[in-house]
C-alpha cells in the first residue's frame, strides 16, 4: 500500500498517536503514558510493521520538526516575564548553571565509560542534557553519532519531565526557582513543558536552565570531552 508512505498520512498519524496518548493519560492519570513517549513508540512500531524506513517518515516528520526552532524562540516570552527575578539573582543562576553543566557532561561520560560504552557512544551521550539542535551539533563535531544523540536527548527529556519533580523533592530542593532551574538544566525543552504545566514561574526558570545550559554546554562540552581524553 503506497498510501501508507504518504507524508500527509504519516503526519496525521503522528498527531493521532500523540492525541490518543494524551487522552489516555488524562483519563487514567498514569504518568508513564507520556504522550511523547507513546507517540514515538507507536510510530516506530507502525513504521516497522509496515516496512517503512525512517527517511520516508522524515519527509512528513520534518514538517513537525521544523516548528521546534520556532517553539524555542517562543520561550523568550516566559523568559521575559521573569526578567526582574533573574536580574535579582544573576550570580546564583550563573554559578548553579555552570555547576550543573560540568557535573552533567562529566558524569555521563564517566558513567558511560564505567558501564563499558564504546567511544562513539560516550561522545554521543555527552551533550544529552541540552536541546536536540545543540546536542546534535556537538555530537557530530566531536565524532559521535548524531541520530543516537537525538534519541537520547528526547529520552532524557521524557525521563526528566516525568521523574524530575520527584528527584527535586528527594534531593531536598525546596525553592520553586531552584527546582525549575534544575529541571530545565537536566531535561531541556521537554522538561520545561512539564514544568510549564505545573506553573508559569516553574516553567520560566526551567527555560532559563535550558538556555544557560545550552550555551554553557555548547562552549564547554568540547573542552570537557577533550580533557577526559575524547579529543577529535
Amino acid at each position: 500500500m503506497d498510501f501508507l508512505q504518504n507524508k500527509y498520512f504519516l503526519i496525521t498519524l503522528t498527531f493521532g498517536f500523540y492525541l490518543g496518548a494524551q487522552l489516555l493519560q488524562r483519563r487514567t492519570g498514569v504518568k508513564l503514558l507520556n504522550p511523547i513517549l507513546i507517540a514515538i513508540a507507536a510510530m516506530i512500531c507502525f513504521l516497522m510493521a509496515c516496512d517503512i524506513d525512517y527517511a520516508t517518515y522524515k519527509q512528513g516528520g520534518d514538517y513537525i520538526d521544523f516548528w521546534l526552532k520556532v517553539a524555542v524562540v517562543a520561550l523568550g516570552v516566559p523568559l521575559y516575564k521573569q526578567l526582574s527575578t533573574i536580574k535579582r539573582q544573576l550570580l546564583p543562576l550563573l554559578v548553579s548553571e555552570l555547576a550543573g553543566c560540568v557535573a552533567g557532561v562529566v558524569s555521563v561520560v564517566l558513567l558511560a565509560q564505567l558501564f563499558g560504552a564504546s567511544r562513539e557512544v560516550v561522545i554521543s551521550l555527552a551533550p544529552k542534557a541540552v536541546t536536540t539542535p545543540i546536542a546534535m551539533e556537538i555530537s557530530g563535531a566531536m565524532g559521535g553519532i548524531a541520530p543516537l544523540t537525538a534519541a537520547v536527548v528526547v529520552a532524557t527529556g521524557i525521563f526528566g519531565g516525568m521523574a524530575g519533580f520527584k528527584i527535586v523533592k528527594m534531593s531536598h530542593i525546596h525553592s520553586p526557582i531552584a527546582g525549575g532551574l534544575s529541571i530545565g538544566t537536566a531535561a531541556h525543552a521537554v522538561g520545561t513543558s512539564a514544568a510549564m504545566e505545573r506553573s508559569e514561574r516553574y516553567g520560566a526558570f526551567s527555560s532559563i536552565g535550558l538556555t544557560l545550559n545550552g550555551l554553557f554546554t555548547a562552549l564547554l562540552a568540547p573542552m570537557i570531552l577533550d580533557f577526559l581524553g575524547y579529543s577529535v
Partner: protein
Amino acid sequence: MILQFGVLFAFLAAGELVVKLTGVPVPSSIIGMVLLCASLKAGVVKLEWVDKLSAFLVHNLGFFFVPAGIGLMNCLGLIADQWVPIVCATVISTVIIIAVTGWAHQWTRSMSSKMYKRVTKKEV
C-alpha cells in the same frame, strides 16, 4: 495571528543571521529566544504581538520532539548492543544534574543573602 507568526519567524531569521555572520556555535533558535526576550524588555516588541502563538507553542513543545525521537529506529542495533551503559549513564547523570544544579542554586542564594545581611548590618 499572522502578526504573531511573522514576529516569531523574524526573530528566528535574526538568530540565523547572527550565526551566519559571527559563526558562534550556538543554535539560531536559542539566539532568537534571547533576542526576543531583549526586544520585549526594550519595548521594541509588544507582548500582545507574540503572546498567543508563543503560549500555544510553549505549552505543546513536547510534540515537536516526536519526529527526532522516531529517529531512534535507525540506531536500534547500537542501542540493543549497548543499552546498559546508555540507560544507566543517562538516568544517573540526569539525577546528578538536577541535584547539583538545585543545591548550587540554594547554596549560592543563601550565601549571597547572608552577605547582604552582613553588609546592611554594618551600614546600620
